[in-house]
């Protein structure tokens, strides 16, 4: 059976009830003992709440990644950047979204073929993009 669940209006917290049993009317619910924790989108996307920041992506979209202008990126500042991570890097005094290459040499690979790959002497990384949210309607 396919059921559509309407999302809540609060974009910060999405909780959906999850019952493992159907509830017949008239009887005390046999599901009462089986209620499980509600699903929390925050818990799904965010590992370290205190070091996670939301950053808006702006500019030429990066088709192969699916990341588009206006998308909301979830950035964890406490995560250690690893090979292949999408990171928020500081270049020329602004934040840019790059793919990080550590081996064979440190490089910031652009999201768009029109821009050059950077080989910075000093790597300044604001945080690791752990997820991004693309709204398909109502882009606010």
């Amino acid at each position, binding site marked *: 059976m396919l059921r559509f669940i309407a999302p809540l209006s609060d974009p910060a917290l999405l909780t959906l009830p999850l019952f493992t049993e159907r509830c017949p009317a008239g009887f005390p619910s046999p599901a009462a003992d089986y209620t499980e924790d509600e699903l929390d989108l925050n818990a799904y996307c965010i590992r370290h709440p205190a*070091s996670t920041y939301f*950053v808006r992506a702006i*500019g030429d979209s990066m088709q192969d990644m699916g990341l588009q202008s206006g998308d909301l990126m979830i950035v964890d500042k*406490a995560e250690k950047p690893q090979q292949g991570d999408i990171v928020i890097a*500081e270049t020329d005094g602004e934040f*840019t979204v790059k793919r990080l290459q550590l081996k064979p040499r440190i490089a910031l690979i652009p999201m768009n073929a029109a821009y050059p790959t950077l080989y910075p002497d000093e790597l300044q990384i*604001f945080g690791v993009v752990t997820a991004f949210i693309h709204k398909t309607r109502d882009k606010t």
Partner: protein
Amino acid sequence: MFALADVNAFYASCEKVFRPDLRDKPVVVLSNNDGCVIARSKEAKRLGIKMGVPWFQLKSVDFPEPVIAFSSNYALYASLSNRVMAHLEALAPRVEQYSIDEMFLDVRGIDSCMDFEDFGRQLREHVGNGTGLIIGVGMGPTKTLAKSAQWASKEWPQFGGVLALTPGNPRRTEKLLSLQPVEEVWGVGRRISRKLATMGITTALQLARANSVFIRKNFNVVLERTVRELNGEACISLEESPPPKQQIVCSRSFGERITTYEAMRQAVCLYAERGAEKLRGEHQYCRHISVFIKTSPFAVNHPYYGNVGTEKLHTPTRDTRDIIDAAIRALDRIWVPGHRYAKAGIMLNDFTPTGVSQLNLFDDVQPRANSDKLMKVLDSINHSGLGKVWFAGQGSNTEWQMKREMLSPAYTTRWKELPMAILR
């Protein structure tokens, strides 16, 4: 053992977190109404900019590089302060938030598994990784000594921002206290240090060696406690949950002088709303509502006027509508036209934790139906970061409101003001 963690140049550092272009630039943060400098980045300190310098003076000075000024953005500072607090709580069992940028930690027993200073460096790294803010850590057997250690960790860069005074090494503590001027000791203000100087006490060590009975006789028990604390006797314990507030004050200086009743009424209405919101945050009800208004005491050729009006309610309330009503009644009693008002505020007093009270048979005012529900809706809209609702009494005219012309975005608390990264 206590540790004191404080964020270096907190307000100025917060302004830099989301501005990579300002990384090595001199940044200052200005007080309300863009008055004077209240925080400086280390680059600004190096330019010789002093605390408290008025912005209009600073603006005209020609510095070798441009100084970037910000209006104080308390929404941002409070958010980052909470994040620092959360990081410290992850590593230390008990944390007390002492001020927006200082936290006391209970670090008893840490030394059984690692060196105190190693732990301090670990705290520093953890907070730095997660927030981009650099903390200094001072540790000592009492809060006062932890504060002295933290002072020293700032004064001498060779400590790398972390310093522990342990009971096992009394000579190090003595050495440090002998170098610390007495006015830098926690709890010793300028007035007390002047009086101490007349008695020949100018360093922290001299204060520590002073006779505690003599100190209590000539000063008070508070300074005696400081003496005991300097000697390693812990007199002030960690307060994890702040005691419930007994009073809420909401006041602001105006960006421009207020001369009309309408504008003053709007301002009082705004503060009443803000005060009521804070009251609900404290889960309290209040019965006493005071409003004060005053002109600037420094204005030349204008007589000074300041007054307080108080309203006492029959039943405790936390409904914004009741508080606005009472505040306006109080304002009407003290309002005198013809003055140029510089400041106004509201004070809420006489708190009770529940709204339960004996109703009077002959009361004119009835408790409002569904008041709690309505206020809950109001607060949740205003806290959502999506928009604000307010009472019409506040008006939409904001001429008199605080001047904050160089305000940075609320990067972490408003959806519309998130930091941006360029896709390339």
